[in-house]
């Protein structure tokens, strides 16, 4: 395959409180078979060789399933391809001579650690606040002991596809985490195992989300369009429903 040459403008920031700025690099020859992260690997090897600090970025599986990677490329979280994580984005989607501005996910609740690495532990805190079911361990239950309508199982499965990457927060004009919370609340409240705690869960996760300083949802639909797993905003409507029902009708507070 052919090589392309790109101009990279990458956000460099030494630490959480250090000032950051965009620094321009020539990519050198990049194979179009590479993934976006491999392109950054190539750049980092060169920078290391030149005695410069490599660009810090998060990654793990590089298979689009762990949710670790993510940066904003020319304004698009995870780059311009629909339903694709940054690690699964191939360089063949770019043209020779393109300029790519690469920035970290930006939100008050996501502190920048270094360069493109942001602290997304807020997402974990929201899970800790209510994104679970409390089931005592014991003998394995019979399969199909609890009947679940096929449609519910499918919708719960769709919601469970969320990999917790935070691109929805990055894409939202208000830096709201509603799509992430909605995916988790939907996943659990659609299934009978999640029912005992559904009111608590909706109230606690929304409270945690607000306390962490994420923004409010304005139904702009940018999250849905940016999500690498195609999580639908119908889940946000379900979260709103779950929350309002819990806040107005349940005994929980």
């Amino acid at each position, binding site marked *: 395959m052919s090589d392309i040459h790109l101009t990279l*403008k990458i*956000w460099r920031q030494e630490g959480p409180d250090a000032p950051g700025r*965009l620094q321009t690099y020539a990519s050198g020859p990049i194979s179009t078979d590479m993934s976006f992260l491999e392109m950054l690997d190539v750049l980092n090897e060169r920078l290391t060789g030149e005695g410069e600090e490599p660009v810090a970025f998060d990654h793990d599986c590089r298979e689009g399933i762990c949710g670790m990677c993510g940066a*904003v490329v*020319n*304004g*698009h979280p995870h780059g311009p391809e629909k339903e694709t994580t940054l690690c699964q984005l191939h360089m063949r989607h770019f043209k020779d001579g393109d300029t790519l*501005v690469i*920035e970290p996910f*930006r*939100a*008050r*609740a996501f502190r920048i650690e270094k360069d493109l690495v942001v602290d997304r532990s807020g997402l974990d805190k929201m899970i800790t606040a209510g994104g679970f079911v409390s089931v005592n361990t014991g003998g394995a239950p019979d399969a199909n002991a609890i009947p679940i309508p096929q449609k519910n199982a499918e919708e719960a499965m769709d919601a469970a596809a969320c990999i917790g990457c935070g691109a929805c927060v990055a*894409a939202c*004009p*208000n*830096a*709201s985490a509603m799509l992430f919370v909605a995916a988790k609340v939907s996943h659990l409240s659609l299934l009978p195992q999640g029912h005992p705690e559904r009111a608590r869960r909706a*109230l606690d996760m*929304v*409270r945690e*989300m*607000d306390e962490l*300083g*994420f*923004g*409010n*949802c*304005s*139904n*702009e*639909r*940018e*999250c*849905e*369009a*940016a999500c690498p797993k195609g999580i639908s*905003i*119908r889940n*946000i*409507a*379900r*979260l*709103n*429903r*779950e*929350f*309002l029902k*819990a*806040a*107005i*009708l*349940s*005994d*929980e*507070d």
Partner: protein
Amino acid sequence: MGSIGSLYRSSVGKKSIMAASGLLLSLFLLTHLLGNSVSFLGRDAFNAYAEKLHSLGGLVYVFEIGLLTLFLIHIITGIILYVENLQARPARYSVNTAEGGRSWGSRTMPYTGVIIIVFIIVHLLNFHFTDKSVPVADLVRGLLSRPPLALFYIVSLLAVALHLSHGAWSLFQSIGFNHDKYNGVLLKGALAFSILVGTVFILIPVLALVSRSFLL
């Protein structure tokens, strides 16, 4: 739980209050629209309609206080949400590109909102805090046949329509109503509602400007 106060402390609760007040304001807009449409039937019908409305006396007063309260709730909550949303992203992106979810209506909600506030003040000064002995048909003609004021009304009403093009769908999402079967209808319905509201309201300043016989 269950009090408005505790709802107000949460983001989802505030949005539901935005949605409820927005829905009631939209319903008011619809009745206002029907009332204004009487002007198309001619001068006598319109004056008679206004007389009838004023003769309701105390009821009108109660209605006005309710409407004012709704506006204040909607405006104050809207401002709080706007400020909180700005604070949620203190550092801006160098490159901003929409993903394709936002619409003209959704991006401009706070700005069209501000235009509506200014409009309401001017509108009330024009038609509410004014000499009530002048027949309403003459009042409308006298004011809206002046090009600068008519233009201001037209632009403001376009802002109302733009606000509703997003709001009339968004309110359903905010209160948790989004269903495969109905979402397409809701999206189109919101657009249709905003176009209807915009067109009928704007027809009045346009007619006052260009028609020699309107309300005469």
